[in-house]
């Protein structure tokens, strides 16, 4: 029983980190109706920038601040150069643009900072902590707490505030939103800036765990089942989806791994996502696309 709880807790903690990445997607999706393929390269870019600055012996917070400034600059540039000329184009065009963008960001980051694997030490001691009979990794706990705080802060910010209302208004009816004076461009910059910030935090946490390397871009692929399960348009969905994927992954690895010959966690989330697509295509919290005839 203890072993089960331990696995479950570990999985849920990892799940919070999936939620963090998924939220970046949800925000961009709500604001522009497009799956932002470049999110993964933004994670890589943020982590790579940060680790390069750290290796030059720059102070932790200063490095974080500079990286954040760079991510915001990227967000503004993306809005100006990529999104603004594509206003009113079909969503598939925007999607292709983010696909192209992901290669540009990936390529430029690696030209500027190299492609070697960097170790990233955030100064969190990774010794297990005991809660009664249950052992939990301290790093996982800190990472989950950080991600959790961020997730809650973002979901409050994007629901209660003026920016939140703008975001939901644009997601609901872009034409009407424009006609009452909501600025699409500003909102896009904000949303991409926040997506950049989320990428930074995700890049640090994932980078510290796996090393800062090209494979960080694959975080995108892990976020996809989270979004399918939770729904593309819901921040709550991203949180719950992340937890389900995290817990499902680690439980499946332990309990099905033996039966099916291991590495269950590489495909389990996708299998789960397929089941959700069959039963509830809009995801748990997504809005079903009902068209009036």
């Amino acid at each position, binding site marked *: 029983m203890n072993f089960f709880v331990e696995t479950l807790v570990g999985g849920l903690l990892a799940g919070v980190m999936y939620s963090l990445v998924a939220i970046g997607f949800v925000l961009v999706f709500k604001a522009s109706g497009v799956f932002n393929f470049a999110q993964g390269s933004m994670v890589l870019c943020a982590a790579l920038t940060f680790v390069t600055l750290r290796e030059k012996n720059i102070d932790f917070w200063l490095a974080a601040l500079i990286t954040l400034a760079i991510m915001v600059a990227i967000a503004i540039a993306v809005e100006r150069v990529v999104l603004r000329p594509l206003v009113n184009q079909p969503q598939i065009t925007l999607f292709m643009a983010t696909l192209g963008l992901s290669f540009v960001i990936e390529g430029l980051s690696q030209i500027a900072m190299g492609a070697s694997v960097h170790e990233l030490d955030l100064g969190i001691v990774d010794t297990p902590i005991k809660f009664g009979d249950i052992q939990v990794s301290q790093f996982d706990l800190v990472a989950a707490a950080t991600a959790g705080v961020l997730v809650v802060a973002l979901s409050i910010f994007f629901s209660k505030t003026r920016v939140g209302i703008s975001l939901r208004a644009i997601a609901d*009816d872009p034409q009407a939103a424009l006609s009452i*004076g909501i600025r699409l461009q500003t909102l896009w910059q904000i949303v991409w800036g926040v997506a950049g910030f989320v990428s930074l935090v995700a890049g640090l946490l994932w980078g510290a765990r796996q090393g800062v390397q090209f494979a960080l871009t694959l975080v995108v692929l892990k976020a996809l089942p989270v979004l399918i399960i939770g729904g593309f348009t819901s921040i709550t969905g991203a949180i719950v989806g992340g937890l389900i994927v995290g817990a499902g992954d680690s439980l499946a690895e332990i309990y099905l791994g033996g039966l099916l010959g291991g590495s269950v966690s590489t495909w389990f989330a996708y299998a789960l996502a397929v089941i959700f697509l069959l039963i509830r295509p809009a995801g748990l919290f997504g809005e079903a696309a009902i068209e009036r005839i």
Partner: protein
Amino acid sequence: MSGPILQLRDVSLSFKGIQALNALSFDVARGEICALIGPNGAGKSSLLNVINGVYRADSGDVIFDQQRFVRIHPTRAARFGIGRTFQHNALFKRLSVRDNVLAGLIRHSRTTLLEHAFGVGRDRSETREFGRRADDIIAFLELPRHRDAIVSTLPYGVQKRVDLARALVGRPTLLLLDEPMAGMNQDEKREMSRFILDANRTLKTTIVLIEHDIGVVMGLSHHVVVLDYGRKVGDGTPEEVRNNPDVITAYLGAVH
């Protein structure tokens, strides 16, 4: 300030050879309710779309508040003080009534993003102020009962009123209403007329509206402009228009 708030000078617009507006000129005086009437396809909606910048006129001038423009983007029009509602409701259907109304205030926000994100500086007072203005207009249009309801769950007539609330909350100098009473029964029309009159009198909003119900138009407006095939065939007080022979042939004459 006096003088017309809106002047149209020889405004023309065509779509693929169809002349939607043909050298149209008229003035809207400050503080009046001006009704645009005319058969379907007369160019009424096109005209509203030119005024708030959804369409660009092929030629001619639109002069709003002494400022001349050929085309203004809808977002800028809203910031200039031109509010509008749509023929087919364009409310945010998945948001509550109050959030819809608050959305109408977003363009008036003066706080920076950082103040807003951390709820410091002017943000608190602005949030309170916006909340108060939204609640005032909700009360003004007798919507408090529906304040927290999701718009898509409300009856059509109430939705139309929410649309009016969202347009009014930003205190536009000019309000364009595209068929505010379409699909309403007589009681609902009477109620809506009352709200439009109230807005005009109490909030001093100049209103340009499109309406098909001649009875409603004659009772509500100070000024009537009659369009037929993109041309102006009548322009004057309801009395003048009612007695204008051209109007009678073009439009009112169709008594069966």
